[in-house]
């Protein structure tokens, strides 16, 4: 059996695992559940050898082992099918499935005939209809995911980790997958199954392990636990999908205000399928949902950074037609990313440069700005938004995460956008800075700015958002406003337990 105990893992200030544990017995399918930031992905990646844990121990058959690399993970009999896929898109199906375990032939060459035979057998077993010489990138996402699972199974693992593999799959492929997982279970393989589709747990799994905030909060057999209880352990709330309280006349949409953004049937291949949303001037719209339900792609499409493949977006009365973020910024859109390092802060440049970066970019190329202007401008912003800094000349990397984020928000507000987009802006930000960021956003909205804020921690949306759109598998599963802004309804919507998505089917 495989066991992890007292696992700890930090990423900078964010605690991903805080004493979590997980057991996997032979011949058992165990669902590993948790909402955003619960640490389940981190746990999977530690077992797969992608991350090393900071503390805790992993044991195989009672012996303590260390898993420092993908190779070590394989050697202990662990195989993983990753949600983000470990296939190499520019290589053929054959080469991908055999990568690292090519059958040996004469003179150190690969036995092509045997490799083809093995791969064909694998494709047949998984019912995958594809040319084994085709490049992975020419195949549909669902086929790619099936191949990812096939690759993991082909390693004949003792522990198979499946990380949200069903999301891109079609109904018939899921049935094939379930059949194979059950076959493996009969052969005595341990399977850890990560999913956000509640229906699959009861259909497939024997045991559930539920994680929350980096800790393991519940272990139970699927016979002795029900859906509401699972959701309760995941989120701390009981869902209320079935007793939907419609509050008459309260769609939550403000009257007497102008519509700024009107999104209809928006699709962004392959993550967003059908999103409808209206945002009014001076409104704060919250976007909630589990991770990877299409929220980042949706926000980036409004910014011209992700290509819209279907539906329409009206922005300020005109068709939204931003080819790049430059167009969007000139059109009055601001964007604050939660991924400060990659999309927001210039870490080695000074604080004042960081604050005035937007202002500089919005001017004409070669427009002259005096040092005095920049200094006054940035010290004004620092004071106004209460950013804790040493000196304006210090590099932005000298600030704490929360202050860096305030700096980025200050940069954008200085440009006075009509629409401010925030993608998980408070990730890894301390409570105090978070409260201040909320205050800044509320002031902006009061001034007529429309704010769309996505957050992985849904509790914060209750505090600031007028209306909350909940994403599930690339669709809006519910819109909460007024009296319907309750934990129970939000949790139900996040789990896809509403309307046509009640049973968690994507198609």
């Amino acid at each position, binding site marked *: 059996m495989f066991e992890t105990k007292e696992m700890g893992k930090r990423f900078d200030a964010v605690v991903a695992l805080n004493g979590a544990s997980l057991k996997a017995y032979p011949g058992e399918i165990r669902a590993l559940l948790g909402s955003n930031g619960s640490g389940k992905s981190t746990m999977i990646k530690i077992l*797969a*050898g*992608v991350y090393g844990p900071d503390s805790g121990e992993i044991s195989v058959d009672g012996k303590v082992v260390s898993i420092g*690399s*993908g*190779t070590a993970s*394989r050697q202990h009999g662990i195989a993983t099918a990753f949600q983000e896929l*470990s*296939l*190499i*898109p*520019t*290589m053929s199906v054959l*080469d991908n499935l*055999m*990568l*690292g*375990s*090519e059958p040996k032939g004469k*003179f*150190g*060459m*690969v036995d*092509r005939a045997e490799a083809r035979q093995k791969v064909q057998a694998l494709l047949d077993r998984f019912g995958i209809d594809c040319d084994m010489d085709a*490049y992975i*990138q*020419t*195949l*549909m*996402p*669902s086929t790619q995911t099936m191949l990812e699972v096939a690759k993991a199974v082909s390693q004949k693992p003792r522990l198979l980790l499946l990380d949200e593999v069903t999301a891109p799959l*079609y*109904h*018939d492929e899921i049935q094939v997958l379930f059949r194979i997982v059950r076959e493996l279970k009969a052969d005595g393989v341990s399977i850890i199954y990560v999913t956000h589709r509640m229906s699959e747990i009861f259909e497939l799994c024997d045991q559930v392990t539920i994680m929350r905030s980096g800790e393991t909060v519940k272990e139970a057999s699927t016979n002795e636990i029900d859906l509401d209880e699972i959701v309760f352990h995941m989120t701390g709330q009981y869902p209320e999908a079935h007793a939907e309280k419609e509050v008459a006349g309260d769609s939550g949409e403000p009257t007497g205000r102008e519509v700024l953004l009107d999104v209809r049937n928006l699709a962004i*291949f*392959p993550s967003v399928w059908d999103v409808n949303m209206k945002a009014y001037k001076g409104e704060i719209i919250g976007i909630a949902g589990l991770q990877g339900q299409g929220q980042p792609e949706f926000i980036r499409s409004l910014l011209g950074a992700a290509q819209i*493949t279907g539906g329409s977006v009206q922005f300020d009365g005109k068709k939204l037609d931003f080819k790049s973020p430059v167009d969007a910024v000139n059109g009055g859109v601001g964007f604050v990313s939660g991924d400060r390092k990659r999309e927001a802060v210039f870490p080695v440049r000074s604080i004042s440069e960081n604050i005035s970066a937007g202002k500089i970019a919005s001017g004409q190329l070669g427009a002259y700005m005096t040092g005095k202007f920049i200094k006054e401008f940035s010290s004004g912003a620092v004071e106004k938004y209460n950013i804790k800094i040493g000196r304006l000349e210090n590099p932005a990397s000298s600030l704490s995460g929360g202050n860096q984020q305030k700096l980025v928000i200050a940069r954008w507000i200085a440009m006075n956008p009509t629409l401010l987009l925030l993608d998980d802006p408070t990730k890894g930000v301390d409570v105090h800075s978070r409260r201040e960021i909320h205050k800044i956003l509320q002031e902006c909205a009061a001034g007529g700015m429309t704010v769309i804020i996505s957050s992985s921690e849904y509790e914060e949306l209750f505090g600031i958002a007028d209306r909350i759109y909940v994403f599930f598998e690339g669709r809006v599963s519910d819109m909460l406003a007024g009296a319907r802004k309750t934990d129970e309804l939000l949790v139900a919507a996040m789990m896809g337990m509403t309307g046509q998505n009640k049973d968690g089917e994507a*198609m």
Partner: protein
Amino acid sequence: MAQVRESFSRFRRTPAFTGFVLFTFALTLNVILQGPANFFSPNSLGILFSSNMPFLIIVIAQGVLLMSGTMDISIGIQLALVNVVTIMTVQEWGLSFVMGSLFGVAAAIVASVVLWVLISVIRLPDLLAGFAMTYVIRGVNVFIMNIPQGTVARPFWQAYSSLLLGFIPASIIALAVVLAIWAYLKRTPFGTHVYAVGANPQNAFAAGISPVKVQLQAFMIKGLFTGIAGICLTLMTASGNPLQAEDWGLRSLAAAIIGGFTFGGWGTIACAVFGAGFLVMIQNSVYFLFNWLANVIPGLMVTSFWHNFIADSIIFLGLLTTIITVRGQREALRINLEKKYMKRGESIA
């Protein structure tokens, strides 16, 4: 017919497709401007192959590195290194030409391994490391041979530029050796690992492949091929020159990209052949174009700078074409996938 169409559409998806189209275009141009009878005469084909063989082989060598996700712009000056080592070991130590050549090849492999240490182990940016190496090797070359000098025994260089059976250029043997080595390597695990490492080192590592080791192999193979190219160059010029072929480093990179390589994990040896062929054919075409113009317009005199200007402009256009086509292919792929996905979704709903 359907089968032909099927294999054509498969070929269109391979990396070599744009390189093939560009090469065919340049070849046709060259044949027309030179005159088919002239172009296809055994003698002129013999010269075409013997004088361009070193370049063709180093484009292949550069291609092997690009597959593994790195590159070597000092590959040009390494040809001169092979050249001076071969000539000087023969001249100073009295070795036979064959023995001298082995030293030359060994020198190229050593230079490649040094670069591997800089790029894969110490992780210097590959362009920078290659640039620095260019100057180091220049110094080494001049240290070994201060001024152009030396000769190759007549039978060797004569054999190189001879025609086997009266019509097969002997220099093709060098290409055949290189292709045979690659044909073997392609069938070993290295043949797929090199692509995995080039495209995504993390995933390759997760699959139990050591990217550093695979890159070492790639560098050594590149060194071997560079050595063979350097011997061709020595046979072609029949003398030593410590400072030749330096700009071939960047040219080989350009040829590889035109042929369809990207920086990491995409591209085949066919890409290298087509890319190198395109460059050579364009240079020839421009030469013959100016010859023809000089006949038509009496008194027209142009310097070789104009030749280079026109030829390199066309090569630049070729480079653009490849990059735009690759982008177009990617977009077409996405749209196609999306359609399939939607269709399948509807058929189930």
